[in-house]
């Protein structure tokens, strides 16, 4: 909220032509809590490391020459892989906590957007992606349901990776903690080789997801100009008063500025 004498509206010659015109108020709303953002970036870094080191462990393409005592190449790769595994587990614990402590967009029920209306929205999103037509795309304050399904799939996939990964990790210490708590896994997947196949197969989910996720995030930012890429850093995004959102009616929200006349402010959805 500004104080002092009213300033004239900005009149930059290029402003009206170079940027899409927005009508009405635009405000910044706070969406993603710090624990969610921290777990996002911890997961992003550790998953890249895990995939890279995992590729080497599955197919060691560098071979060291000379005496074995002079090298520890695979040992180092495995160490970094296991270290990154502890980081993703840490990120997972934060995310699980935030599933119960976060807001309506971060909580447990948000992971399952399978209502009749949302399934229709998913179809509309898909159609908008396929026809490149942003006008037919439904708008959401949080994730669109199609994106949410992808994120939920990544959570499920990562859980499978953690279970199979720590099962394999536990084999080096039979009777130890990880060996004992994941004893049921090899039998379920047809032996340790089965566990290895599952771990190896699900790993390919990440490069597929990464390219699509990063692209669609940047694309959404490019088309909607709502700052969704930086929302994972700052925690919030922009909304305009004329936008109609399917998942949250901000027009009725008591603290939205075009309702109260205050601007700018933080709106924290309940």
């Amino acid at each position, binding site marked *: 909220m500004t104080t002092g004498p009213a300033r004239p509206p900005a009149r930059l010659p290029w402003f009206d*032509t170079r940027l899409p015109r927005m009508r009405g108020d635009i405000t910044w709303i706070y969406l993603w809590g710090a624990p969610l953002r921290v777990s996002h970036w911890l997961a992003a870094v550790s998953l890249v490391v895990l995939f890279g080191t995992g590729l080497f462990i599955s197919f060691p393409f560098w071979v060291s020459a000379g005496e074995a005592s*002079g*090298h520890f190449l*695979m040992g180092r790769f495995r160490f970094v892989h296991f270290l990154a595994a502890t980081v993703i587990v840490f990120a997972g614990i934060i995310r699980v906590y935030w599933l119960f402590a976060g807001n309506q967009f971060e909580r447990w029920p948000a992971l399952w957007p399978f209502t009749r209306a949302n399934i229709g929205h998913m179809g509309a999103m898909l159609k908008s992606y396929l026809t490149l037509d942003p006008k037919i795309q439904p708008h959401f304050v949080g994730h669109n349901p199609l994106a949410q399904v992808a994120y939920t799939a990544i959570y499920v996939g990562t859980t499978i990776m953690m279970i199979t990964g720590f099962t394999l990790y536990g084999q080096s210490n*039979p*009777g130890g903690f990880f060996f004992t708590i994941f004893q049921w896994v090899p039998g379920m997947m047809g*032996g340790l080789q089965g566990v290895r*196949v599952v771990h190896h197969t699900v790993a390919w989910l990440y490069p*597929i997801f990464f390219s699509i996720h990063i*692209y669609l995030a940047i694309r959404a930012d490019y088309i909607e100009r709502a700052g969704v890429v930086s929302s994972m850093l700052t925690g919030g995004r922009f909304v305009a008063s004329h936008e109609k959102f399917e998942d949250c009616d901000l027009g009725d929200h008591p603290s939205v500025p075009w309702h109260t006349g205050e601007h700018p402010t933080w709106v924290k959805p309940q």
Partner: protein
Amino acid sequence: MFLRKAEPWLDGSTLGEHLEESGVSRRSFLEFCTEMAVVLGLGSAAAPSVAKALETQKRPTVIWLEMQECTGCVESTIRSEAPTIGDLVLDVVSLDYSETLMAAAGHAAEKARADSMAKNKGSYVLIVTGSVPTKEDGIYCCVAGKTIRQHLEEAAEGAAAIIALGACAHWGSVQAARPNPTGAVGVRDIIKNKPIINIAGCPPIGDVVTATVVHYLTFGRLPSTDREGRPLFAYGNRIHDQCSRRAHFDAGQYVEVFDDENARRGWCLYQVGCKGPATYSPCPIVQWNQRTSWPIGAGHPCIGCTEPYFWDTMSPFYRRLPNVGGFGVEERIDTIGASLAIGAAAGVAAHAGMTVLHQIRSRKNMKQLPEHAPASPEDSNNG
């Protein structure tokens, strides 16, 4: 070494008396007991207890059923550590029936087995090698006019414990591999009410068999096992963690093809499909044929023969990961995964290009719109 005389072990005498009569020295016997105590993981301090338990042992009876199998397990068992100890084991277990080893044949052999089973009902040990065919009422394996399943059920009836020897006896091994034409299953799928121990391997190491029998004779029960029913003293650790080539694994030194320079240097066989990281077995320590060698020691990757259903789960033997079913034999996970990843990246790039073109076009159109209305008084408040 034992110098055995051909003295029969009389029913009433103990093993100690019998060994003395056979000319086995006390020192040789104690050496054997020490070794068994060590193999069992009891430590050499337990040797006197083992010796005491063994020498006071009355002649126990063992029935050895050979079912759908190749007799490789028998061959392996009679090659335990030293031939004399193999003899000792065969004496200790007093095989009343074993198709490969017994001298009798035909009706006489069947009668001997029936007599022995009736006489020692509830106390004999049943060793089983081979799998049980179940399709077509089990006609794929018949002995003396009866299916092997009937034989097994009769023999198991009066057994105190069952030793399932070899991969066939527990999981069916190669006969049970897909598509399993005879419906082969292991003993545990037929007999549910008896303690069964699983001496896994195709074939298992003779010393493990010997040690299991010694454990049974010493303590009167089968050794403790893992989830697969394998005795922990032998199958408690992975080959990978006991391997003599492990240093090369950690260093990043691998055989890439079988005849390369790295193979000559004795480097790790991980890349040519070694299943040591998935296999629990004492092979690297106990080894085979009087500690002469073992598969990885001889330059061949482990094929994982002590693991469940290894013909299906561990093959292809010279590749690190199993094939993916349903995608054709040649398609592998990496091919599919990498194609999908590259496909996703390519799709993203194409979509991005088209989105940019689309946006440029629609923004050009936007430019031609008339200027929108001047900011309202409320707007001018917005700094």
